[in-house]
């Protein structure tokens, strides 16, 4: 075939192709964090290849060092100007750096407490660490681009590793089930997202959110319908990843079946990525007045109801759960609703309401969720794991430190004053009021009260004396788990004490 083409205009074709895709201008520091995380994963895999008959400590060491340097390269760029490189594929701005930093933090915390749990569950595969790192790199990609195709690629890199990780406990039926469910539904959601991207490309001829925005033409009805349809499909795809309510059905099953450390990463890392992408998409539509107005008239009501449903259904269904991981799964759905309120408040009135609230809530949500799952991971021993409420019974005798931390996480998840969870909710509440979203603020407040019941149930379970537990004794506390608990519990208070300097540093002047 090629020879035939070459005889007619082969040279011309090759030249045209090379001209159509010129070597882009490259700013290496802007992709250094992602590259570092990916390379750390590769190094971890090579370490596993070189010494498959050793324990995972070297891999963990490499992973944590790699993440540390990725975080360092992110923080060193905080003062640098915003820029786009790689032909508009990679964007560096405050938001992308902050979100990437959150993802790096979440990954580090997950890796820190994983090995003890994986050993107790008898699945300490060395491949866990590279997969988590690559998954994290996907979430980082989602935050650091305005190109829809890059966002899609980020979602896929994030998800495909997670599909494997969810099924890592190969001999457990529920782990297999969760991997299969996650994979099938995730593939379906990705197709929606891609179809939406295709519509937006068809309407505007570009995949870049800025170009899409400037191509907006409200008078052309066909164009407008295509855009709205595309945007709707994209929201479906992202809402699935973020587990908003009509698209949440996979969450409890997958969270329950996947190994607990994977669930922790899913609940925090994957949600951060999805929220970042959603924010990029929605905020791109607000900066143009016309598009913003149309967007709000069509999609604001939809998202408004999605937010109400997500908060309410998440909390109501959590009330009747008998499994701690399922309860935390529904709780993560409810928290996704709270975060969506924060995003909507920003989208509704970008002048008055900044992005700081969402970033702060994501930070505090990650800390408390990972901490709670880390404590729940203590119920695994000798390859068995019970995650029902009864299986937590008597935990306070076996590891008082873990239960002490659990109380902090639960208090923060409820939103009791000195914790970051309280301030996060307060900020979202204020933002919702400031941008005329009074009903959402009220629903949020009511739901916070509702959620007290099941969160207290989790804490109470740890204090009841052991009788009905199926696993008579839980795994001993290990150093990594203690470190994770300490960092998360300490962080919940630290982010409140250091609120002003932290927010100045993370999102610039508020």
């Amino acid at each position, binding site marked *: *075939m*090629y020879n*035939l083409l070459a005889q007619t205009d*082969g*040279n011309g074709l*090759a*030249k045209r*192709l*090379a001209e159509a895709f*010129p*070597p882009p201008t490259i700013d290496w520091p802007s992709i250094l964090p992602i590259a570092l995380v990916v390379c750390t994963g*590769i190094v971890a*895999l*090579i370490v596993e*290849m070189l010494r*498959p*008959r*050793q*324990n*995972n400590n070297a891999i963990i060491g490499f992973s944590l060092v790699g993440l540390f340097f990725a975080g360092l390269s992110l923080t060193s760029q905080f003062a640098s100007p915003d820029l786009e490189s790689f032909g508009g594929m990679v964007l560096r701005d405050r938001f992308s750096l902050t979100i990437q930093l959150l993802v790096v933090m979440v990954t580090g915390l997950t890796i820190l407490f994983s090995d003890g749990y994986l*050993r107790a569950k*008898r*699945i*300490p*595969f*060395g491949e866990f660490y590279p997969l988590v790192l690559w998954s994290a790199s996907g979430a980082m990609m989602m935050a650091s681009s305005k190109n829809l195709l890059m966002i899609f690629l980020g979602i896929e890199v994030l998800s495909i590793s997670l599909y494997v990780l969810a099924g890592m406990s190969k*001999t457990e039926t529920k782990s297999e089930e969760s991997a299969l469910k996650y994979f099938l539904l995730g593939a379906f959601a990705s197709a929606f997202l891609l179809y939406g991207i295709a519509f937006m490309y068809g309407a505007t001829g570009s995949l870049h959110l800025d170009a899409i925005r400037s191509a907006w033409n409200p008078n052309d009805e066909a164009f407008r319908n295509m855009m709205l349809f595309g945007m709707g499909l994209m929201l479906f795809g992202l809402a699935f990843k973020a587990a908003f309510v009509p698209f949440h059905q996979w969450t409890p099953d997958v969270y329950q079946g996947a190994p607990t450390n994977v669930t922790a990463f899913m609940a925090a890392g994957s949600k951060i990525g999805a929220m970042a992408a959603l924010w990029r998409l929605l905020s791109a539509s607000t900066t143009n007045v016309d598009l913003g107005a149309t967007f709000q008239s069509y999609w604001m009501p939809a998202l408004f109801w999605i937010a109400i449903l997500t908060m309410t259904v998440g909390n109501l269904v959590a009330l009747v759960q008998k499994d701690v991981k399922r309860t935390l799964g529904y709780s993560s759905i409810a928290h996704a609703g709270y975060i969506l309120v924060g995003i909507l408040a920003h989208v509704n009135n970008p002048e008055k309401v900044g992005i700081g609230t969402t970033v702060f809530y994501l930070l505090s949500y990650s800390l408390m969720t990972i901490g709670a799952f880390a404590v729940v991971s203590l119920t695994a021993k*000798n*390859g068995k794991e019970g995650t029902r409420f009864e299986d937590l019974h008597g935990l306070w005798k076996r590891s008082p430190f873990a239960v002490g931390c659990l109380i902090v996480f639960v208090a923060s998840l409820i939103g009791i004053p000195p914790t970051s969870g309280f301030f996060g909710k307060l900020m979202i509440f204020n933002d919702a009021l400031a941008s005329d979203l009074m009903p959402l603020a009220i629903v949020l407040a009511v739901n916070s009260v509702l959620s007290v019941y099941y969160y207290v149930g989790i804490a109470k379970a740890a204090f009841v004396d052991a009788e009905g537990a199926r696993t008579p004794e839980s795994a001993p506390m290990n150093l990594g788990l203690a470190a994770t608990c300490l960092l998360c519990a300490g962080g919940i208070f630290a982010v409140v004490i250091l609120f002003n300097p932290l927010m100045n540093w993370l999102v610039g002047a508020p």
Partner: protein
Amino acid sequence: MGDYIAIVILVGLAAVICGAMVSLSFVLGPKNTTPYKQSPYECGVQPLGDARERFPIKFYLVAMLFILFDIEVVFLWSWLTVFKNADLAYQTFSFGAVMVYMVLWIIGDAYVIRVNAIDWDETTSLHPAKLGEPDPAALPVTARDLELVGGAR
């Protein structure tokens, strides 16, 4: 029409080759039939039975690895087509990019070979060192058997 003559030739060739493969093996092949060979898939998975039984995934593993090789060649082919006649700046850049891709590829292949993913008879299990336990080779036989029973299966 003239532009499409090449495609017509391609379709024709493909039809001839496919037809030849099917018909010649039917005409020339020895016909020793057994009930097992007569089943819809003579190799691989037993087509009838309980859907929940365990079955070997080796065929799928090999197929997946083969597809990856295929895709790699497709990428390299299209890249080389452009690479041949492009200017130096493009050549250097795209060469670097493709080399990154190839290095990742080779590491992946090394990993596949290292974990015996394409060994037909290998059953792998976790080494006790991963679990933070002593090497079973160093233990007396009975203790070692207990290790394996409670081990990472």
